[in-house]
């Protein structure tokens, strides 16, 4: 029987079949962050259970720490206890803790790939739904809740039921100025926020093979907004080149052995999926969200929809509530809508290529007077590399704040919020009600589109800049 990439990854990690499609799966990498990892380590200690594999567990603080220049782990006082618990417990159980200011600190989903902690053919979990990001390197990676987190700490395994499988095939190439973020929003807008529920998604086809690794990470990151906790791209030469020489990646003969194993990680011709979809990359426009679900995505030159045209009653109610929350009227053009805040950051879009995309738009221009604009690099590694290229100078000269690595305004768990009623263009992955702060109005877009909005002081079409 032909196998899928997902089948291969799954089968390679089965410690025991539990019947009924359930398996006890080995977990090769576990990432802890301040928000969920602190509580997990504390629970483990309370229950008197030892950590099963300290060598496979890694911790950093990202969610509840300040991103202000000059910050420490305790600058945001309400996050300080979480930071302290994570640091102390990490030391106690003997796992690496990438502390503030150290190489390795940053958003878990940015730092682990770039350090080579994430590898093709491994299983990786984290108490965070965007863990699907790591599938961009060919890892079977998914988010878990706090009960599952303690289960992994104590046993290095999880009981999982094999999900259904979905494949999205991409053909053609993205037009200039259109990025993986636009693509992800376009796919979610087309298929809907529950299209992948209960499925593991493989992003496949020539369009994916042509995407650089950081773009694959962005596409897989956004896949949880399709309802799927797992997303994958088959590893290839680009993956190998990306990982070669990374600090935690295998070296020498081990790397050669890894490459040989990784070359088997693909879907056979004729393998069956429960659901398939096809996209032509050449048809993807710069895309932005108008509402409060990532599926509320439209071409940037489009208009907010009319709830009367909604396909069903539940959507009509959701669209109307979203328009009210966002302060938009049916048929309103998004382009030209004034914005108050621009946030360039998050595990969707705070990697070096994202910052380059934004800097290209910003260079030699000024942020509009009424706009507050932030750049929050995804990790210390990204920040250092960006500064070495002078990107920080470009942003600062234009009037952006250049900040320290972390989740920052993506999640508003660190005191960094878009004020109530204010409109933001953000490169993050969620436009949920209150996500960037109570009453905050979030439009999700690519780094280039966010930069364009900062300069124009309003939502703007990158193709016209």
């Amino acid at each position, binding site marked *: 029987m032909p196998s899928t990439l997902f089948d291969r990854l799954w089968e390679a990690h089965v410690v025991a079949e539990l019947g009924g499609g359930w398996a006890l799966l080995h977990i090769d990498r576990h990432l802890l962050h301040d928000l969920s990892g602190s509580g997990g380590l504390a629970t483990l200690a309370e229950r008197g259970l030892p950590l099963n594999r300290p060598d496979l567990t890694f911790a950093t603080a990202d969610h509840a720490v300040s991103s202000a220049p000059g910050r420490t782990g305790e600058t945001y006082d309400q996050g300080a206890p979480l930071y302290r618990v994570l640091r102390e417990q990490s030391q106690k159980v003997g796992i690496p803790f990438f502390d503030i200011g150290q190489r390795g600190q940053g958003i878990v989903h940015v730092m682990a790939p770039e350090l080579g902690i994430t590898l093709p053919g491994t299983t990786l979990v984290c108490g965070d739904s965007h863990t699907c990001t790591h599938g961009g390197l060919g890892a079977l990676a998914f988010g878990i809740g706090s009960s599952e987190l303690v289960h992994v700490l*104590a046993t290095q395994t999880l009981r999982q039921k094999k999900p259904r499988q979905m494949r999205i095939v991409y053909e053609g190439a993205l037009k200039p100025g259109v990025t993986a973020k636009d693509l992800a929003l376009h796919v979610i807008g087309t298929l809907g926020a529950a299209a992948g529920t209960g499925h593991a998604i493989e992003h496949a086809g020539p369009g994916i093979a042509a995407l650089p690794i950081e773009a694959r990470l962005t596409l897989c990151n956004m896949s949880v907004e399709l309802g799927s906790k797992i997303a994958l791209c088959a590893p290839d030469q680009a993956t190998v080149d990306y990982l070669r020489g990374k600090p*935690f990646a295998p070296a020498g003969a081990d790397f050669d052995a890894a490459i040989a194993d990784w070359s088997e990680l693909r879907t056979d011709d004729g393998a069956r999926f429960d659901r398939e979809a096809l996209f032509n990359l050449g048809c993807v426009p710069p895309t932005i969200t108008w509402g409060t679900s990532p599926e509320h995505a439209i071409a940037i030159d489009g208009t907010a929809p009319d709830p009367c045209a909604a396909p069903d009653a539940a959507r009509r109610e959701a669209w109307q509530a979203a328009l009210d929350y966002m302060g938009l009227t049916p048929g309103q053009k998004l382009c030209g809508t004034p914005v108050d805040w621009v946030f360039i950051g998050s595990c969707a879009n705070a990697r070096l290529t994202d910052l380059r995309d934004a800097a290209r738009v910003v260079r030699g221009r000024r942020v509009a007077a009424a706009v507050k604009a932030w750049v929050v690099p995804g990790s210390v590694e990204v920040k250092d590399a960006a500064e070495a290229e002078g990107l920080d100078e470009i942003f600062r000269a234009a009037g952006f704040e250049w900040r320290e690595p972390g989740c920052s305004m993506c999640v508003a768990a660190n005191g960094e919020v878009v004020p109530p009623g204010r409109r933001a263009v953000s490169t993050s992955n969620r436009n949920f009600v209150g996500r960037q702060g109570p009453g905050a109005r979030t439009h999700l877009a690519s780094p280039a589109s966010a930069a364009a909005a900062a300069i124009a002081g309003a939502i703007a079409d990158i193709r016209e800049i």
Partner: protein
Amino acid sequence: MEPFTIITGPAAPLLRRDIDTDVIIRIERLTQLPRRELGRYALEALRGLDFVLDRPPFRGAPILLAGANFGCGSSREGAVWALQETGLRSIIAPSFGDIFFANCFHNGMLPVVLPEAAVASLAAQAAHGAPVTVDLRQCRVIAPDGAAHPFAIDSLRRELLLEGVDELGLTLRRLAEIAAWQQADAVRRPWCAPNKQGHVR
């Protein structure tokens, strides 16, 4: 964990689709409050003057009738805790976010998948607080008029919930088996151990 067998009571309707876990409980509430205080803040962004869980007969209701894709978004298990603290034991919806769905089972909360039309009909009948029954032993939801809606549920999950067994206890009995797998794997995939040289600075 508290076992789940059968519950009967008012079923609060909240049929908007795509209610995400950020809306179910704001992240700052989770970082600032103990679990037992979360109930008041469940769904706070939707709480207006006559929010359904704040008014009789639905205050403290054990059942929630929800829209499609309920609990999508963030993996925060606190979303389940917050709903639980309002008194909920079961949520009936056409579909759920995957991680939220799993988190429910780890806390003795039963998520039931029923077709949209069935949820809508339950909501209509239960609108004034007429009792709905969720029976995990028989795998069916009984409407106020007595109509039974059978539901499918994974058999392993059902057993654990009926008994109130948590998974960790079961897996801890397999630590030797896990250690043996790990040893064999170290030979099979020597490259998989994180590079010891990697430890940065």
